């Protein structure tokens, strides 16, 4: 039983972590918490659903089209909603993301209705493999583990070795200095939003496969993923994933022992962490001098 609890905790935790990475990427470059992240993933998943149901395309093709949509969506929101903001403050930009969230939710409700739908994901939660006696691993879980690890490695290589990744890090540290060094900060922001949107869309598809597809289905996972990101440290991508995994494990073990308290345990832990280590468990604590 403990082994199965660990697997389930790791699986949902990795999914929180993956979605938390999407939140953290935007935060890393602009210090903006994107409250529309869940709904960006949600609308992308609805696009995939629509392609699968309406046009009967194979999943891989629907996936590619959805990823293109997610890229365009991220760039669209950054270009048309955030960039025109005059003398933007971080708080002002966060409020804009809240507006985007409501807009996307209404749009999906109007187009596809509020009735729950089943998202036909190729990695089923029902197809299980007994890896040890009494210990089951399903295809969905394997997919989450592999994908999270893959995205972590790719992001590490990207931020470490690519010019664009270095430009993103530079923009996060000091926008003005980055501009002086010739970095086109606006383009960096556009790319960041596109990248975040793609990772968020992939995670949202995993959540839909485990739950149901409706216009509100990403609200709760967003809150958990955001909490995981805060727990791990919003500026550290490995920290966010580790935060997600920690959250998944804490919730599952605590939820097994005291089911009545499961919904709040994660947030109690986060309050404790923020009180003792405000930058999160795995991020370095920077103090800006003014």
């Amino acid at each position: 039983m403990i082994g199965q609890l660990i697997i389930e905790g790791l699986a949902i935790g990795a999914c929180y972590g993956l979605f938390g990475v999407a939140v953290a990427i935007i935060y890393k470059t602009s210090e903006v918490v994107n409250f529309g992240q869940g709904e960006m993933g949600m609308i992308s998943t609805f696009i995939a659903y629509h392609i699968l149901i309406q046009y009967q395309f194979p999943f891989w093709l629907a996936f590619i089209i959805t990823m293109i949509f997610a890229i365009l969506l991220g760039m669209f929101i950054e270009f048309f909603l955030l960039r025109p903001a005059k003398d933007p403050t971080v708080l002002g930009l966060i409020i804009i993301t809240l507006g985007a969230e409501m807009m996307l939710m209404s749009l999906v409700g109007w187009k596809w209705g509020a009735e729950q739908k089943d998202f036909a994901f190729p990695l089923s939660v029902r197809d299980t493999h007994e890896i040890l006696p009494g210990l089951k691993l399903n295809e969905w879980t394997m997919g989450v583990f592999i994908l999270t690890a893959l995205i972590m490695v790719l992001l590490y290589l990207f931020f470490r070795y690519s010019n664009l990744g270095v430009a993103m890090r530079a923009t996060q540290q000091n926008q003005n200095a980055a501009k002086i060094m010739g970095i086109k900060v606006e383009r960096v922001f556009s790319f960041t939003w596109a990248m975040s949107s793609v990772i968020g869309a992939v995670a949202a598809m995993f959540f839909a496969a485990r739950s149901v597809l409706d216009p509100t289905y990403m609200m709760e996972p967003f809150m958990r993923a955001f909490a995981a990101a805060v727990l791990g440290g919003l500026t550290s991508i490995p920290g966010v994933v580790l935060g997600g995994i920690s959250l998944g494990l804490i919730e599952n073990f605590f939820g097994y022992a005291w089911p009545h308290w499961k919904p709040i345990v994660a947030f109690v832990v986060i309050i404790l962490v923020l009180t003792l280590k405000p930058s999160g468990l795995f991020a370095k604590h920077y103090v800006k001098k003014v």
Partner: protein
Amino acid sequence: MKGFEIRGYVILALAALFLLPLTAPAATPGVDKNEIRIAQWGPQTGPAAPWGSVARGSDILFQLVNEEGGIHGRKIRYFVRDDQYNPAMTVSVVKELVERRGVFAFVGGVSGAGGMAVKDYLAQNKVIWVSPATALNEYVFPVNPYLFGMYPLYDDEASVLTKYIVETLKAKKIGFFYQNDQYGKDGLTGTKKRLASYNNMSLVEEIPVEPGEKDLSSQMLRFKNSGAEVVIMWVNPTTATIALKTSATIGFSPQWVSSNTLSDYALMNAITGGLWEGVITGAFALPPDSDNPLMVRYREAAKRLSPEERWGTFYLAGIAFAEPLVEALKMVGPNLTTEACLDALNSITDFQGIGPKITWRADQHQGTDSIQIQKCGPGGTAILLQDWTSNDLATWK
């Protein structure tokens, strides 16, 4: 002097003319010689929109009544308002309907919170409200003279289902998974009362869940570890779906039993990817594909009048909720007033349409404690396991 007298008579006559309309009996709001205005609120947009089909379903019955010439020469004019499942909106739309449209009666009305927000307002304005589409003890206890409930109370339903589980399924180990609110707790109460009647039998596990929770692994593992043969769940469709998917993941396959709120098998079977097959639920109306003559008539009417609508449980529930009001209006006769309609509703005895038998008395406005027990068959079809059964342990009757 005579001039003063004449002027005095004229003033008195004028005063009498002004006073006449005040002393004459006031016309009943929402009724004239041509129409009866009836209304319903319900979420047509927003997250609870799937339940909005209840309000649209009632329209089928009213259209059928109108096609047959109305009730004693009056056609029904029906208003539906979207409250988006938001109690503040419910108040707003109900006030508009009462004060601007002057409706005679309300029927149905999804959302307990929305209903509670307007319950007293409707009673103060003497507007009749028949068959709220939610089971709340506060609606019917103590008796509200203008409110008539027919939705089976959740504790009655859970009690009947538990009796079936123990006596027919012969299950010894029962778990209960419930939404952590009044809906879930009422179900839990009904099951516990019933189990207590079997030599103090008790649940092997009872676990609450918050409505938005998306990870139910630890809860399902706990049920699995308890050895539960049957798990009763009193939750919403999304939570039920996640519970079934998670259980499949960990290799846990008990007999699932649930309340009538999850009896839309076509929907539940679709969103669970077929896992709903075999689930047993309570039901407050006949199965959608029933060959009952009344059901056949409604089904055909829906096909003809609203071909775009899915003939599902909640859609036909809208018809079931409106049937007793139509019956009462027929009983009243041509002289329709609020008081006459209240008298007719209070005298309804064993009335049955496509729902359970309804009986209302002046001192008892909960119309039934009966449910059917149905099972989801292949492709989301409904299989009738047990016909209308009332709760022999109900203490309110």
